[in-house]
């Protein structure tokens, strides 16, 4: 059954298997994330109270850097040996490929977050004064926001010069509302001073809008020479 779902599953499984075998991307990303946390800890060394205020911003900027490193290598394997051409000449729907890449990136970035978060908690003595159960929701929605647009723009960057700088250049401005929402929501939960509900709804809306837009327009980008 060649449905998009089964093809997405097959492509995702292939990507995960390949990554597991070579481990080159995930290893460098893990180390990079560790470096980012340490450098941030040296640069921003506030007291416990202040740290709760700014932790939202710090953590998400760190995640953003790690995400860009992950996103830049999204299509690297497909560009070697022009494998992308093999995909393009096949009858397979482009959206299956796109979804598989987004899910793969989502998993990578979540793994990075799982590593970086305990370090942040340790270095900044963080403790959530608000509803902590909302944190994974914010993390998931926020990561999806970065990853869905990031994977899309990574594909667009394939057809441009200065590929590696093009991706963050396109991604950052468009992601501003999502970043604001992630930072504010995290800050709200950590300080417990106000409700994160609006920001969570905004993130969900952002995710829906851009997932649909990406699915709609990815075919055009893939078939662009």
């Amino acid at each position, binding site marked *: 059954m060649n449905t998009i779902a089964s093809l997405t599953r097959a492509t995702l499984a292939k990507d995960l298997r390949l990554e597991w075998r070579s481990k080159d991307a995930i290893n460098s990303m893990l180390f990079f994330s560790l470096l980012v946390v340490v450098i941030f800890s040296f640069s921003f060394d506030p007291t416990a109270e202040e740290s709760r205020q700014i932790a939202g911003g710090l953590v998400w900027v760190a995640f953003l850097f790690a995400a860009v490193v992950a996103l830049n290598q999204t299509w690297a394997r497909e560009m070697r040996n022009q494998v992308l051409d093999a995909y393009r000449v096949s009858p397979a729907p482009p959206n299956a490929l796109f979804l598989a890449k987004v899910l793969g990136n989502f998993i990578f970035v979540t793994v990075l977050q799982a590593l970086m978060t305990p370090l942040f908690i340790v270095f900044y003595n963080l403790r959530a004064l608000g509803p902590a159960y909302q944190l994974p929701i914010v993390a998931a929605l926020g990561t999806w926001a970065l990853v869905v647009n990031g994977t899309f723009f990574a594909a667009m960057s394939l057809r441009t010069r200065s590929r590696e700088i093009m991706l963050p*250049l396109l991604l950052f401005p*468009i992601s501003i*509302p999502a970043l*604001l929402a992630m930072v504010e929501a995290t800050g709200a939960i950590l300080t417990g001073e106000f409700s994160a509900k609006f*920001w969570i709804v905004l993130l969900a809306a952002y995710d829906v809008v851009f997932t649909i*837009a990406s699915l709609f327009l990815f075919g055009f*980008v893939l078939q662009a020479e």
Partner: protein
Amino acid sequence: MKRVFPILAVLTAGLLSYALYEALVAAPTEQTMGDVQRIFYYHVPSAWTAFILFFVNFFASIAYLIWRNTKADMVALVTAEVGVIFCTVVLVTGPIWARPVWGIWWTWDLRLTLTLVLWLIYVSYLVLRRFSSSGQTPLLAAVLAVFGALDVPLVYFSIWFFRTQHPQPVVGGGGSIDPRMLHVLLINWLAFSCFAALVCWSRYRLEALRREVDETLALEALLDPSQAKTSRSRSAG
């Protein structure tokens, strides 16, 4: 069409001069802020003009995606460029105004922040147009413009809510406006709109000519076999 352009140019020059006089001399001095407030007559109309231009860019981009019409692509390019310029005016006049009045260079108020984000999005749009290979540029740019347009309401709501949580001074003042000031504001907006139309039109003509030259050179290359062998800008065959 050729005669309309000089007429529009003269009209624009007239309007701009009149608007300048109105803004700097004839308009009443503001109560609390004094003469500095007059920058309002540049700050706000520039913002409106920029937003309208980006609006047009959005529709031109969609038109390109649906019909692959090169004229639509040219309109998109032109409105993006001129829109960025007007955005820059807003971003420069904002701090110039804010500093003497409130003592701070920047305030994250709705208009200023929205303008900043739009400026960032459209500068990235222009960079994409410059960095992509020319065959694909219109398509990729149109796609990015659609993404940018979808982003705008989300930006608006996020900043709006952010400001209710962290109130800041509003550049441009809220609330009611003296009818004489409104009159001057609208005159300036009309003048700026005419000016924007003029610049867009010139740029459009320039772009159309440039593309015509490219097409002629391409046609030459097509018909002349010796050119095909020597002029190789890309690898093929």
